[in-house]
């Protein structure tokens, strides 16, 4: 008998016989509050940097004055072509090793934890949001949802190869619980909230 069969047989034999219904998740959705306000507060609390803007022009200006754009800046967004390269999506992911700043757009954000949801369809490459020194993510104000339950409702049965929630810059507190931003991923995260 293969391990698969023997494991499954043992489980079938041993799993509890009582029927346990799945709970209703609807009551967990209740929320009354300022979604965008909460988003920004939580993001600041975990070391992220929220920036409200009206359009891509303002995003470009912000990036020009706050990042070393003479270094390698990449994006998935044609709107940013004047400051960032677009032709890297089919390159070997290792070649992204020297990226200074990556700018992508999220499907949506979640107020309760300030995370942003991206899938491989809009990341360019899976490693794109992990390997750069600095990361900036754009999200529409109207796409900020209250809680994770709303997030999964929105995701529904979306197909993807890879998807991730990103909340703040990469961090660690493994040395005596002292928080250090910039563990293996981005050292900072700016979130452009577009009106």
């Amino acid at each position, binding site marked *: 008998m293969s*391990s*698969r069969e023997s*494991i*499954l047989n*043992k*489980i*079938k*034999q*041993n*799993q*509890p*016989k*009582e029927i*346990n219904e*799945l*709970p209703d*998740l609807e*009551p*967990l959705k*209740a929320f009354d509050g300022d979604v965008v306000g909460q988003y920004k507060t939580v993001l600041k*609390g*975990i070391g992220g940097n929220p920036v409200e803007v009206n359009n891509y022009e303002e995003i470009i200006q912000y990036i020009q004055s706050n990042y070393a754009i003479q270094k390698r800046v990449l994006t998935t967004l044609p709107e940013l072509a004047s400051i960032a390269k677009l032709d890297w999506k089919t390159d070997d*992911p*290792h070649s992204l*090793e020297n990226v200074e700043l990556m700018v992508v757009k999220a499907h949506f954000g979640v107020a*309760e*934890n300030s*995370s942003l949801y991206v899938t491989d369809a809009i990341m360019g490459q*899976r*490693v794109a949001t*992990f*390997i750069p020194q600095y990361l900036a993510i754009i999200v529409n104000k109207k796409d900020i949802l209250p809680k*994770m*339950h709303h997030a*999964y*409702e929105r995701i529904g049965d979306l*197909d*993807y*190869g*890879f*998807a*991730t929630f*990103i*909340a703040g*810059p*990469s*961090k*660690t*507190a*493994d*040395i*005596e*619980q*002292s928080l*250090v931003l*910039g*563990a*293996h*991923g*981005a050292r900072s995260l700016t979130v452009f909230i577009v009106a």
Partner: protein
Amino acid sequence: MNSDKTIQHSDAATVFNKNVERVNWHDETLWFVREKRDRSAHQIPEWELLRETASQIKFNVLSNIHDYLVEFEENAKKNGVIVHWAADAKEHNEIVHSILKKHEVTQLVKSKSMLTEECHLNDYLADRGVEVIDSDLGEYIVQLRKEPPSHIVLPAIHLKKEDVSETFHEHLGTEKGNIDPQYLTESARQSLRNTFLTRRAALTGVNFAVAETGEFVVCTNEGNADMGAHLADVHIASMGFEKLVPKRKHLGVFLRLLARSATGQPITTFSSHFKKPREGKEMHIVIVDNGRSVQLGRPEFKNSLKCIRCGACMNTCPVYRRSGGHSYHNAVAGPIGSILAPNLDMKKNADLPFASTLCGSCTNVCPVKIDIHDQLYKWRQVLVKEGYTPKSKTIAMKTMTTVLANPTVFEIAGKTGRFMMKNFPMVVNNKLNKWYDNREMPEVPKESFREWYKKNGKANKGKKDE
């Protein structure tokens, strides 16, 4: 495994307690994490409903694991993932090794996976010429020091920055005496970046696996799991079969609970959902039993399989905080580890369910509402009945009534006192035991102990005491 080689929890704890200052620091650091968890939980008005919901989902999973596993496998295969089944640790390690061998890989980068600790994968691979580098900073530190992690979420929580500084000076050539966490983290970042860029195979753990879609979720703060997996040709994910959730939407419940319970963060920095391999690359999932199906069949202990490994029960446990993770001689330490370990090896781990005051704090913080302290209490009964408690325990039980009735007798009891302290720390008060010095202790549940003794102490009467 040879039980004689295992140092009993109480003995290891005694050693750990020799450095009073450090024990106090360890205790306070974990309590600080526990307080962050409290603040985070209090911000969610529906926290209790969230815990109850998570608990119900996990109960549903336990009753239907067979079908969910079959569904998960089917969907994962459809997604192009290669699924393996491992009955025990040995088979898990063999599978991982065979995948690496097929690809002629001799260097593996690994993100946090307590399961691979449970299976002793690193040693197994090292013996076969495969170099493994742990990429989580805490795990990297303890790996350089040739120590196991002492905590499932905070692997190096037993170390001070001076220790890390020395280790990094020795292995990474950092400045001697530079103890700045920022500087030390940066050096590890530089060194590990090179590792990520050069490894062709990556192994990650699994936090949740979704039956409905065949995808699995890996949560990290550092981004190390993603850096490894997205740069490698082969991604191997090892999971205990209890990691399943029925549907994608259930992730919403667990992702809300996990990080808040673990460190007080609203969510981990990255919650990555792996569904299909990258074009032209390979993704493997190894589904591991290793005693879990046996635990599933123990009505008193099956609930331990609801665990999502948040570590909250450790951070809050007065015994864990003052004895350190290594004293539990098991991959998973603390209260939950003390329930899981005897299932794997009753003889070797018979001491662990006794390493508790049964104060119930673990049960109160557990995000999936596992009745942790009840299960510890029940293990004691089982272990006594099965004859696994050390013989010496029986003498302690005989004296127990006197001790409970008259603490002064105990305090001056010399040899007996030390003996009692070793075997029954939960009834030892602060004059003799550093565990309880300066601590605000929850009330010692004398009642439950008495009840337990009444039932089980008698069972040992008539047996020969040493």
